[in-house]
């Protein structure tokens, strides 16, 4: 009987701890700073964040990237993730408060209190100061509302259990906002913010472990293409390049080469970007020349 009681207590304690670890964590309203919106900065955050590359219709370019109807599918080993509508329509984020948006971007939690899957790169977006997130929300609110909900994700067990994401976040979401490193030049710090934070370069250029978390010991050192062939379900044999200044990476690229490639899409050999980097470059084109140079300075500083 005593053993039975002990077992029951242990189970209960375990359940409480599991609940405590996996329950979505939220930012409270009074933690939001007073902030006067800067739409110009919001637009910059939109482009560096690459929102339109996933949340606009598949293959959208130019002004069509501002129509955030959702619908693009990422076929991964975990299943198919479908990017939702994030336009300011009732089918998108039209009814969201600023706080809803901040919690989505920084905590990966929906207004209904559910965990988002990390296909939405909140492990990177959590680095953004709340003020940049609020500016981005204000910019999204100026875009055309688009009706229509995207399909749901299509995931196999156990990845379809959203509660499990609480454990995932416990392991991979550190809750740290970006802090400039006082020992680095301003430009490198700015680049580090853009790359590590909103730019989420590591989402493709850093390898992942079997749970889909980024292997930070190999940060930006190149990775297998995560997506699988939508017809065969087989893992792609493709490789996303190393973008550190390593010999296997951008050692032979100057800082100017990197900035120029982000401006025009041309590599130093005057090959062009392709695949999903083509859309990324279209986004980065909208940044200032100094921000592109800052990104390049940071990448060149990575060994």
């Amino acid at each position, binding site marked *: 009987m005593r053993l039975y009681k002990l077992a029951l207590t242990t189970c209960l304690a375990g359940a409480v701890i599991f609940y405590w670890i996996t329950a979505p964590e939220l930012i409270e309203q009074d933690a939001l700073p007073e902030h006067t919106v800067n739409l110009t900065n919001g637009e910059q955050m939109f482009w560096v964040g690459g929102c339109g590359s996933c949340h606009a219709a598949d293959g959208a370019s130019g002004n069509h990237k501002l129509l955030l109807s959702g619908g693009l599918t990422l076929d991964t080993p975990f299943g198919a993730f479908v990017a939702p509508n994030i336009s300011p329509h009732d089918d998108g984020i039209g009814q969201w408060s600023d706080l809803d948006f901040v919690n989505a971007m920084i905590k990966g939690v929906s207004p209904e209190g559910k965990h988002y899957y990390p296909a939405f790169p909140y492990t990177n977006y959590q680095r953004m100061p709340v003020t940049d997130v609020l500016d981005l929300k204000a910019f999204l609110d100026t875009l055309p509302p688009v009706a229509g909900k995207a399909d749901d994700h299509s995931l196999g067990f156990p990845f379809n259990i959203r509660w499990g994401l609480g454990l995932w976040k416990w392991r991979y979401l550190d809750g740290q906002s970006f802090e400039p490193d006082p020992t680095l030049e301003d430009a490198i710090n700015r680049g580090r913010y853009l790359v590590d934070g909103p730019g989420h370069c590591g989402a493709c250029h850093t390898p992942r472990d079997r749970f889909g978390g980024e292997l930070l010991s190999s940060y930006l050192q190149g990775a297998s293409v995560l997506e699988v062939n939508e017809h065969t379900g087989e893992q792609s044999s493709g490789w996303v390049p190393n973008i550190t200044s390593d010999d296997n990476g951008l050692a032979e690229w100057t800082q100017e080469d990197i900035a120029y490639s982000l401006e*025009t*899409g*041309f590599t130093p050999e*005057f090959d*062009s970007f392709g*695949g999903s980097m*083509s859309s990324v470059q279209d986004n980065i084109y909208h940044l200032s020349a100094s921000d592109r140079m800052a990104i390049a300075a940071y990448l060149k500083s990575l060994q």
Partner: protein
Amino acid sequence: MKILSLISASILCASVSVVTTADGHGKGYPFKNEIQARMNVMNLYGYYLGELGAMAKGQSPYDADAATRAANNLLAMAKLDNTTMWPQGSDNSVPALDNKTRAKPEAWTTYPEIVDKHKALITAATTMAAEAGNGLDAVRANIGAVGQSCKGCHEAFRGPKLKGHSH
């Protein structure tokens, strides 16, 4: 023991031959001429664009005659009818062509989309050829459109790099 080492020796031989075949050194593969020819065309595009790009990037001084010559060459290359370099079945979904080509089957399955995308290159190269002699700013203003046309095809029809391979 003898049998064991015989077996391991033959396994070693087998794996060596597999490696050699997969690597393709000294071996032919389907559409080798066509695939190599079209990669050479791409390299030449890069060569002429590089002459213009070096000026645009400030790595070499602007020279109106040199810019016009490079742009004219690029346009002439773009206008070649290279249909025979793109035979059906020479894409990266063909197991024998793994590591040989990055051309995706969509280049054929979505035909004639690739023709439209190629026309965008001819249009951009035509403008560049007409403008390249009119100053450095004209080169800079038009090289972006050429890049967009390159990316148009490479986004849709070129697969990713493969680990450890330069192309």
